[in-house]
């Protein structure tokens, strides 16, 4: 993976020293909160419901074992012994003291990590396919481009005061695991007729209060033009984006108000101006970066033991069936380690678990680790012959749950258990759904299903693109949960449809059960997934299951 150059290191150290001085001035009273807030946000420091929160970037979800151990050390020294993996490939600490944060940033800098631009109206952490560099269906590893974008966007003077935050996601595969259509800019690698790799550029996607699937502004952008093109998009947005209304400030609204044709024209015009100015420097830098992302030297060994274990051990088989994905080398698998043990908080990892993951990555995974926006951890390169030993090592750690892609693999934002913006809780709803379907022993029978829960309209839990989405709201001083159905965050992205009136906190789990019962009853066979069944049947049968009394009333 990419290691900091002297330039990166000096930049992060300088920023850490600046922030330490800013904290001192805030504590002495020399800075008011209004003056301090933008400074702390530039460095990922939020003030939440019960405490400060520090959001640390894991650029494009890539992290090494050494860094993982440092996160564990930070969790033990300055926090409550755990970290929370977010839906944008960051990790959050929920309980740091303001006075400790400069020390935490310094400890992060020691291992080439930072919290810069994880908040504020800037270009945020660039996210990528968490299977990047390993996936069987990949055209090219998108992470060198993501790293180029990180270097370009970090402290870019033109883009430090954007109308609003700006999120970029990138994938190198035809299967979209990075939700590119719900980002301000989504980049999907495609090939042109000559077979050369380039990008489909999608602009103006986003969730939140105005959920929109992004619009393709370029079907094929040559790889070499990527950076000037992205800069052109940002430049046009920076000019046109509305600064008068926070709720209309994202590029999706700019696109909507300006129109696709006019916005595309402005982008292309600006691109023509910018492209010659880059003078090939970006490509020279990209070449250097690309060298740092080479695939590790994969080993050759007998794979017979894997097949023997798969046959003999039903627990291992169940885990292998759900938590493994195809690797570009047929003797390897991509392992997803679930942070979704039934009843646990989605995305939380204890310091002990972080250390175990680091050890296992070193022993069996060529020292590579990824964090997914689905709040799980990935070991991207594990040889078939190591899988049974790896699984045995996970047993008893809380990391062995065989549920990736199933009903209990729920994305949930922190909600009102932590977040100052939340209007209702998300975590306990996720915990109860996971526990309930575990009790029923139904989840493997239900098959692939994505439930996503947000505790407010800002949609950090991506509820609009959940096959079942749950949005927690405050209705007249009581928690209330709205259900959307049929959402999809993949290459066939769709915003889910609202099912009807919301449910009280103690009614939401039974409501989800009724949806699932309707699906199991109406699916063609076990091969038809929930999303396929929904697309075939539409909302009506699920609505009837959700609101049985309404049907009776209509019939009467």
């Amino acid at each position, binding site marked *: 993976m990419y290691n900091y150059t002297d330039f990166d290191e000096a930049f992060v150290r300088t920023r850490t020293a600046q922030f330490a001085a800013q904290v001192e001035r805030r504590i002495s009273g020399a800075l008011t*909160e209004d003056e301090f807030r933008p400074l702390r946000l530039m460095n990922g420091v939020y*003030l939440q*419901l*019960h*405490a*400060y929160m520090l959001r640390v970037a894991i650029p494009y979800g890539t992290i090494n074992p050494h860094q993982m151990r440092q996160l564990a050390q930070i969790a033990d020294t300055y926090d409550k012994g755990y970290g929370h993996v977010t839906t944008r490939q960051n990790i959050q600490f929920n309980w740091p*003291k303001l006075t400790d944060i400069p020390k935490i940033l310094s400890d992060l800098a020691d291992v080439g990590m930072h919290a810069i631009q994880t908040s504020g109206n800037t270009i945020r952490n660039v996210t990528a396919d968490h299977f990047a560099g390993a996936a069987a269906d990949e055209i090219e590893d998108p992470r060198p481009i993501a790293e180029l974008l990180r270097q370009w966007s970090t402290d870019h003077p033109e883009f430090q005061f954007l109308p609003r935050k700006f999120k970029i996601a990138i994938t190198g595969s035809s299967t979209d695991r990075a939700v590119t259509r719900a980002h301000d800019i989504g980049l999907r690698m495609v090939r042109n007729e000559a077979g050369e790799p380039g990008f489909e550029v999608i602009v103006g996607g986003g969730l939140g209060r105005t959920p929109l699937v992004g619009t393709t502004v370029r079907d094929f952008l040559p790889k070499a033009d990527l950076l000037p093109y992205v800069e052109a998009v940002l430049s046009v947005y920076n000019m046109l984006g509305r600064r008068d209304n926070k709720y209309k400030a994202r590029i999706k609204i700019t696109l909507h108000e300006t129109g696709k044709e006019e916005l595309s024209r402005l982008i292309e015009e600006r691109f023509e101006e910018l492209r010659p100015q880059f003078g090939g420097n970006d490509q020279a830098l990209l070449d250097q970066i690309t060298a740092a992302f080479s695939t590790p030297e994969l080993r050759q060994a007998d794979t017979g033991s894997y097949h023997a274990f798969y046959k003999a051990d039903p627990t291992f088989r169940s885990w292998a069936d759900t938590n493994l994905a195809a690797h570009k080398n047929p003797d390897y698998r991509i392992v997803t380690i679930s942070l979704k043990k039934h009843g646990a908080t989605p995305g939380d990892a204890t310091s002990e678990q972080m250390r175990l993951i680091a050890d296992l990555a070193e022993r069996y995974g060529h020292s590579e680790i990824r964090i997914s926006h689905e709040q799980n951890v990935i070991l991207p390169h594990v040889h078939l012959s190591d899988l049974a030993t790896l699984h045995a090592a996970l047993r008893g750690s809380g990391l062995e749950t065989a549920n990736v892609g199933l009903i209990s693999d729920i994305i949930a934002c922190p909600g009102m258990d932590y977040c100052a913006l939340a209007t209702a809780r998300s975590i306990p709803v996720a*915990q109860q759904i996971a526990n309930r379907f575990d009790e029923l022993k139904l989840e493997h029978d239900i098959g692939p299903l994505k439930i996503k829960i947000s505790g407010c309209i800002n949609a950090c839990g991506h509820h609009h693109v959940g096959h079942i989405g749950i949005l927690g709201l*405050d209705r007249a001083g009581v*928690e209330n949960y709205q259900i959307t159905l049929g959402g999809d965050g993949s290459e066939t992205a769709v915003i889910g449809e609202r099912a009807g009136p919301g449910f009280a906190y103690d009614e939401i789990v039974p409501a989800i059960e009724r949806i699932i019962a309707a699906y199991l009853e109406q699916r063609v066979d076990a091969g038809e997934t929930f999303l396929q069944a929904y697309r075939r049947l539409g909302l009506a049968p699920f609505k009837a299951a959700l609101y049985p009394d309404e049907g009776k009333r209509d019939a009467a």
Partner: protein
Amino acid sequence: MSRAFVTKVITGNDLLIGDVIYLTADDQWSRDHAEAELIEDEAHAQLRLLDAQRAKNVVGPYLADAKRGAKGPEPVHFREAFRTRGPSNYAHGKQVERPNV
């Protein structure tokens, strides 16, 4: 006619730790909701909010609805009730820490 005033407390977060704190009648900041000053009229509420905004150790003070209880003021809204306790997924925060440190 204006609506009847709902009694209030003043609350914010501690500058150094971030913990939830409440303004008491004797101008201290307590970590216990029950020790907060229960404010019973609008004019006094605005004055007390000005006092709170001048305090050095508090971030983002605001008025929150509260009602009289057996042991002191009690929160009205569920958000404020969560703030008196901490998160529901772990025994962290006020629910396990001694109030009034």
